[in-house]
C-alpha cells in the first residue's frame, strides 16, 4: 500500500504557521518597502539575530514532546555567555572554553534530568530551580558586564565577525552607490545545522521515536519495554547541550556577558514551539514548525523595530496574541478530533477474511 500523506490536524496547524509567516513578511515588505524591509538581508538578519533562539527552540521541541518543559534555558544561555566572556577576557584558549561550555551544559541537563526523570519531580519546578541556579551563578561569576574585544581572543572575535557572503549577483546597490551583498554569520550555520540534526534525529532514530512514544502515553511506552526514565533524562541532557550551543551563538552575536542577558528567552522559546504546532501535552510536534515559529517572532520584532514609533512592548503583545490564536486553534482541533474518534468507536470493523 502506498504511503499517502495524511492531512490531519497537525499538518494543517504547521501549514497555517508557515502561511502566517509568509503573509506577515509580505505585509512587512509592502508597508516598509521604503525602509528596505524587502531586502533579502532583512530575512537573513532575522536568522542572524535569532540563531541562539533557534538552537534553544530545537531542543525545547524535544523536551516538550515528552510532555515536559524547560524554563531554565534563558538562564543557562546567560551563564554560558558570561563564562565564555570571562574566559576569553582572561585569555584562555578559545576551543577549550567552547568545550567547557558544552560540558557544563551536559552536566546541567544531567542534574535536571535526574530530578525530573528518576525522582519524578515536576519539570516546571526542577527547571525553575535550574533557572534560579544559573541566573545566580551568572552573577557569582561577575555582576558587571564583560565584553569580548579583539584583543582578548582574536580567534573567537574573528569567528563572530565573519561575514559569509552570498554570490555577488545577489547584491543590491544601496542609496550610497555601494553594492551590498547579502551575508550571514557563522551562528546561523550552526543554528541551521542544529535544527537539521534534530529533525533527522526525531524522524529517523530510535531515540527520536522514543520521545514521541513517551509523550504520547508514558505508561504504554514503559509497558512496551522502552526505558522511559533514560529517554527523558537524555532529552534534558540534549536540551541543555543544544542550549549551550545556542549560548555560544548568542555570545557570538553579543560579544559580551551580563546578568541581564537572555531574560525571557525561555518564554520566547515556548511561544515559538507552541506557534510551531507542538503540544504541551506531549507526543505531537515538529521541529520545522518550531523553526517557523522563531521566524514569526523574529518578523514581528523586526516589524515593530522598523516602525520605530511603536514601543517594543507591542511586539510582546503581538507574540502573546499570536500564541493565543494558536492555542485556541489547537484546542478546537483536539475537540473536533475527539468528536470524530467517538464516532469511529461505533463504526464496524472491515473484515477481509474468514
Amino acid at each position, binding site marked *: 500500500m502506498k504511503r499517502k500523506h495524511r492531512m490531519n490536524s497537525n499538518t494543517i496547524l504547521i501549514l497555517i504557521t508557515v502561511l502566517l509567516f509568509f503573509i506577515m513578511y509580505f505585509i512587512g515588505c509592502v508597508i516598509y518597502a521604503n525602509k528596505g524591509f524587502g531586502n533579502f538581508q532583512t530575512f537573513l538578519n532575522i536568522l542572524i539575530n535569532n540563531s541562539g533562539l533557534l538552537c534553544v527552540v530545537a531542543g525545547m521541541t524535544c523536551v516538550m514532546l515528552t510532555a515536559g518543559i524547560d524554563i531554565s534555558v534563558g538562564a543557562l544561555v546567560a551563564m554560558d555567555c558570561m563564562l565564555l566572556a570571562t574566559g576569553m577576557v582572561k585569555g584562555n584558549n578559545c576551543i577549550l572554553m567552547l568545550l567547557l561550555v558544552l560540558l557544563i551544559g551536559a552536566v546541567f541537563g544531567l542534574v535536571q534530568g535526574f530530578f525530573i526523570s528518576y525522582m519524578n519531580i515536576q519539570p516546571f519546578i526542577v527547571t525553575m530551580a535550574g533557572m534560579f541556579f544559573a541566573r545566580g551563578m551568572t552573577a557569582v561569576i561577575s*555582576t558587571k558586564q564583560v565584553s569580548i574585544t579583539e584583543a582578548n581572543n582574536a580567534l573567537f572575535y574573528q569567528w563572530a565577525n565573519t561575514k559569509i557572503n552570498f554570490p555577488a549577483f545577489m547584491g543590491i546597490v544601496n542609496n550610497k552607490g555601494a553594492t551590498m551583498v547579502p551575508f550571514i554569520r557563522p551562528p546561523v550555520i550552526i543554528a541551521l545545522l542544529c535544527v537539521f540534526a534534530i529533525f533527522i534525529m526525531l524522524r529517523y532514530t530510535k531515540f527520536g521515536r522514543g520521545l514521541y512514544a513517551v509523550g504520547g502515553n508514558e505508561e504504554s511506552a514503559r509497558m512496551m519495554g522502552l526505558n522511559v526514565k533514560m529517554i527523558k533524562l537524555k532529552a534534558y541532557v540534549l536540551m541543555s547541550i543544544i542550549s549551550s550551543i545556542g549560548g555560544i551563538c548568542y555570545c557570538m552575536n553579543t560579544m559580551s556577558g551580563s546578568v541581564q542577558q537572555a531574560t525571557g528567552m525561555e518564554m520566547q522559546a515556548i511561544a515559538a514551539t507552541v506557534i510551531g504546532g507542538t503540544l504541551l501535552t506531549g507526543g505531537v510536534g515538529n521541529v520545522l514548525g518550531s523553526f517557523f515559529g522563531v521566524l514569526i517572532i523574529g518578523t514581528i520584532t523586526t516589524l515593530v523595530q522598523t516602525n520605530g514609533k511603536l514601543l517594543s*512592548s507591542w511586539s510582546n503583545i503581538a507574540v502573546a496574541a499570536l500564541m493565543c490564536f494558536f492555542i485556541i486553534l489547537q484546542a478546537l482541533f483536539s475537540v473536533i478530533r475527539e468528536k470524530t474518534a467517538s464516532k469511529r468507536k461505533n463504526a464496524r470493523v472491515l473484515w477481509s477474511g474468514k
Partner: protein
Amino acid sequence: MRKLLEKITKTKLFLPFFCLLLVLLINLFKSPSFFRVSVSNGVLYGRIIDILNRGSEIAILAVGQTLAVAVSCGTDISVGSVMSLSACFTCMLLAGFGVHSTTVLQMPMLIGIVAGILMGGLCGAFNGVLVSKLKIQPMIATLILFVAGPAIGLLLCNNQMVYIRYDQYKYLGNFLNIGDWKCPIPTPILVTVLVVAVIAIILRKTSLGLYVQSVGINRRASRLLGINSDKIVFICYVIAGLCAGVAGVVASSRIYSADPNNIGLHFELDSILAVTLGGNSLSGGKFSLTGSIIGAYTIQAINTTLLAMGVSTDQAPVIKAVIVITIVAIQAPVFKQWWAGMKNRRQAEAKELS
C-alpha cells in the same frame, strides 16, 4: 513514643511545617535576636514581623494558586504579570493617563484600588474561560497573560513609572493611620489574614472545597454526578485573579507607585513554589490551604535569611535553588519509598542478627 513520632511524621502538614521550622531555626542560630519583636514609633519591628510583612504578597498569591492548581491540575503562571497589570491600572486611574507623578487623585482612592483588584479578577476570568470552556492546558492558557500582562501595563503607564504621592495610598502597603492612632501591625499582614479567612470560610462552609477536589481529581465523573465542572474551574481562576489583583495593589502601595517592570517579577514562581512546599501536588486534586500558606512564609523566610547573610540579590537565587530542590526532593514520593525501603532493610538485618 515511637508510634507517636511515626504518626506525626506521616501527617500531610508535617514536611511543610518542618521545613519552615528548619529555616527559622537556622536564622535563630545565626542571630539569637531573630525572634525578638520590639515596638518603636508605635509600630512593631523585628525580623519575624518583617517576614510576615514581606511574605504577604506571596501568601495571598499562594491562596489563589492553590485553588487554580487543585482544580485544573496545572499552574497559573500569569499571577505575577496580573499583579503588575493591576498595579499599573490602579495607578493610571488614580493619576490619570500619562502622568508621571501626582499628589492629587483623579478619582476616589478606594474606587481606584477596587478597580485594580477587579482588573485582576477580569484577567482571572479570561484565564478561566480558556481553561474551562476551551479545555486548554492551564500553563499554556496563562502563558498568554504572562507575556501580555506587563506589556499592557507598560502601555497603560506610558512606559514610565507612575508615582502616587498621596499619603493615604501608602496605608495599604505600610501602616494604617486612623486619626491619631497608628496601627502597630503592618497592613499587608492584616490584608493577608482577611483574604485567607474569607477563602477558608468559603471553602469550609460551602461545598466549594469538596467540588474543587472532585473536579481536580476527575472532571468527567464530576460532571456526570451533577457538578458543573466548568463553573467550578472558572470560579477558581477568578479567585486566583482577584488574589493577584489584591497582591498587586498591596505591592504598589508599598512603593506608592507602579513599576511595570518589577512589580510581580518572579512572583508566579514563588507562588507555585509555595503551593509545592505546602505538600500540594501540581497534578491537582486534594489540596491544603494551610500547607500553601506555610510554604509561602517559608519562601519569604529563605529570602530574608539570604539577605541577612549578606548574599546579594543577584546571587541569592543560587542558594534558593538548592534549598528548593532539596525540600521538593525530600517530599517526592520516590524519595519516601527509597527511605522506607532502606528502613525496612535495616529492620530486616537487625532481625536476622537477633
